[in-house]
């Protein structure tokens, strides 16, 4: 038995003609659907394995040229920055990708491309909070918000990316002031996920929370009536509309340096931003499509249109380590 497993698994190691291997840190049902659809359309078999972004980067690094992976998919642009720095990716030239993916959502040298977007917004309690005091992320440090603010911990990639974007556009001093000011306004220690912040608003523990849009989308469409109830009391503020725009993070895709099926892999990258694939991505997970030809889902559309931060992500992600350290120095959990 063991022998046959070994033989089988060794056999699987030899790349067959038409297939691609994906290391993905995303794990949504939408992704599996997309793999199947791609197989049907092209006859190219898709094999995938999932783990956390950091783990997959290390795996690519350790495997080096012997890696079977062709593509690396992950959420949070920070991961792509690390992967690029560790030398496990290679640059891709593709007119399709360059045409569809806006310049701020892809690497300047073609090392990675966004496939979907999520906006880091400020949610508030519609029942008793006046949203007019918050226009920008910086307003979260206002003394009026003392004891009202909810946010997950500094280890969440979404938070470090947000702070990195503040460093990029406003400088280190402003960023550390923001980190200290928001910490002073917290209603409770940072903990739980984005949904837990929403639930805390509902429970009256705080009135304002920093959240990703797609969590609100998921809650509004949850099988659990209590979740829907929670999401319904949330108002959405898109910050920084009068200046640089709301911070947007991405899920993206990159070609690995070790890729042995480069041509098919690039085909898959292009497929991921095609209208057909984008509709599935946007429809199931309530993320914003990166392809402007595709409309977001109705749930998300109802939040309204907004101006997105035009600072290229590839620039702000360079500041992530700095952001992590600023959070630590400010005493964030």
């Amino acid at each position, binding site marked *: 038995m063991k022998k046959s497993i070994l033989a089988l*698994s060794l056999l699987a190691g030899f790349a067959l003609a038409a297939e691609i291997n994906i290391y993905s840190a995303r794990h949504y049902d939408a992704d599996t659907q997309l793999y199947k659809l791609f197989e049907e359309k092209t006859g190219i078999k898709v094999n995938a394995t999932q783990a956390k972004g950091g783990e997959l980067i*290390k795996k690519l690094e350790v495997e080096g040229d*012997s890696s079977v992976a062709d593509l690396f998919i992950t959420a949070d642009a920070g991961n792509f920055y690390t992967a690029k720095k560790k030398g496990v990716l290679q640059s891709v030239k593709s007119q399709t990708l360059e045409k569809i993916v806006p310049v701020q959502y892809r690497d300047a040298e073609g090392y990675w491309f966004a496939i979907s977007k999520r906006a880091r917004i400020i949610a508030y309690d519609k029942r008793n909070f006046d949203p007019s005091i918050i226009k920008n992320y910086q307003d979260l440090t206002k003394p009026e918000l003392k004891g009202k603010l909810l946010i997950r911990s500094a280890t969440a990639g979404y938070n470090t990316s947000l702070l990195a974007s503040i460093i990029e556009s406003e400088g280190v001093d402003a960023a550390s002031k923001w980190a200290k000011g928001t910490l002073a306004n917290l209603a409770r220690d940072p*903990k*739980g996920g*984005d949904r837990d912040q929403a639930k805390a608003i509902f429970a009256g523990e705080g009135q304002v929370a920093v959240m990703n849009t797609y969590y609100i989308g998921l809650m509004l469409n949850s099988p659990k009536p209590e979740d829907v109830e929670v999401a319904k009391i949330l108002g959405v503020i898109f910050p920084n509309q009068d200046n640089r725009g709301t911070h947007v993070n991405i899920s993206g895709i990159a070609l690995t340096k070790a890729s042995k099926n480069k041509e098919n892999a690039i085909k898959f990258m292009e497929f991921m931003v095609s209208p057909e694939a984008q509709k599935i991505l946007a429809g199931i997970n309530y993320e914003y499509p990166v392809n402007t030809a595709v409309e977001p889902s109705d749930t998300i559309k109802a939040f309204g249109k907004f101006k997105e931060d035009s600072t290229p992500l590839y620039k702000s992600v360079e500041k992530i380590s700095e952001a992590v350290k600023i959070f630590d120095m400010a005493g964030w*959990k």
Partner: protein
Amino acid sequence: MNIKFWAITVALIILVPIISIFFEIAFGDYSNLEHFFKYLFLRYIQGTFLVAFGVLALSATIAVISAWIVANYRFPFVNFFEYALMLPLAIPAYIFSFCYVGIMEFQGYFHKIFGFRLDFMNIYGAIFVLSLSLYPYIYMFAKTSFKTQSKVLFDVCKIYKLSQFKIFRVAVMLSRPAIIGGAMLVLMETLSDYGTVAYYGVATFSAGIFKLWFDLGDSYSASILAAMLMVLVFIIMIFEHINKNSKGYSFNTHNIAKTTTKSELNTIGKTLAFLWCFVIFCLAFLFPVIWLVYWSIMTIQDFKLEFITMAGNSLLMAIISAILITFISFFLVFSTRIIKNNKLNTFLLKTTSLGYALPGASIGLCVMIVFGYIDRNFGTQFLSASFVVLIFGYIVRFLATSVYAVESGYAKIPKNIDDASLLLNRSKFTLFFKVHFPLLRHFFFLSLIVVFIDIVKELPLSLILRPLGFETLSIRAFFYATDERLYAAALPSLLIVLLSLVAVIWLEIISRKKA
């Protein structure tokens, strides 16, 4: 065949990845470490100490009292509780923590029933959740030990007219190797836990390792922390070893296999015993499972046939690995016992158990480094396309569980039995199979059960070391849970629990049949 040679070889192979963490250290830059020590170290040490101490105290209290009650007294449903109290082991700690957040949140059951809320997502919540999910290790070890305690001893206690409480104290002292073995596992699991503490916002050493690795992209500095953790646990192990040997209560008796008989309690005693077991069972198993069942029903339309495949995968991996690990640990413990002057063996045995104290992802990293080296230099593709790596990872990580089970069993067999057997010119082979194994059968099954369940619910290693396209239930459950789709996570989680339940029941039937 030279047992010593083989024992050392096997131990060294298992040690390679654990030691490789020190090699990893040699090749990094440490710019992030200074930051870590300056701003975070103290907080992480405090958090680690508090959580570890809290979990040890609470889980040992729950486990030892429960084990003592079910092993020694007759009261309503005692046979049911005897097994039911093991069941929380089937629920992964991170699932536990999600369930309890679900139960304790605003408008959760607790709030609905009592009209108020307790803030649960903090260090006390983490201690509570981890204790409930880990106490079964101590419970199983202690129970097995109490049940196989020599009757002669209690007869002596009765002759001296010792009170029940004093007898309890004697029994606990005698079962110390088993209880401490279980407690060591709880301690190591607590130190390596990441899911619960991260979710509840508690800063522990494991969290620090991940902070450096994932947030700062610095796996080198993370390895230094992992190595520090390992050294700390090693020191504790050595203390435990010295302490255990200095008070070797391996006593000489003719009827070692004769087990204690349960005694009758008065009405108040019966009620109290029943209530104790019932409350623990509800908190540690029934409530979270009801939550899982409820949400599984609500999301039943999401049931996918692939869950069955995943269950099959989990099952196959767990069976193969549990058997392998149990055999290896029997061999290693046996060899340290019969080899004279066995300091080296004991040292190796202790170090091979260290894998359990590290966060699974760190072990995964070490195993990856070793096989990555092989792949790059020998043109193989173990890493991305083989189960060998995954099973090897399980062995490195879970050997400790089995070793502690076997050691606690061996502590009960007087050494002069070995001498007698060897003096009679019986081979070591005969000694093991004809003498030790029959006496240790309970512990053999204990090891199989514990390792099997550990692997069914195992997460970080499976995540990082599995071949392309291979998925287990715990992986799926975890992905849903990290996505904050707790309801979707309920169905695969429930399947994990069911799989472990079937294993516990099946093995219990086997061990009874042969008893």
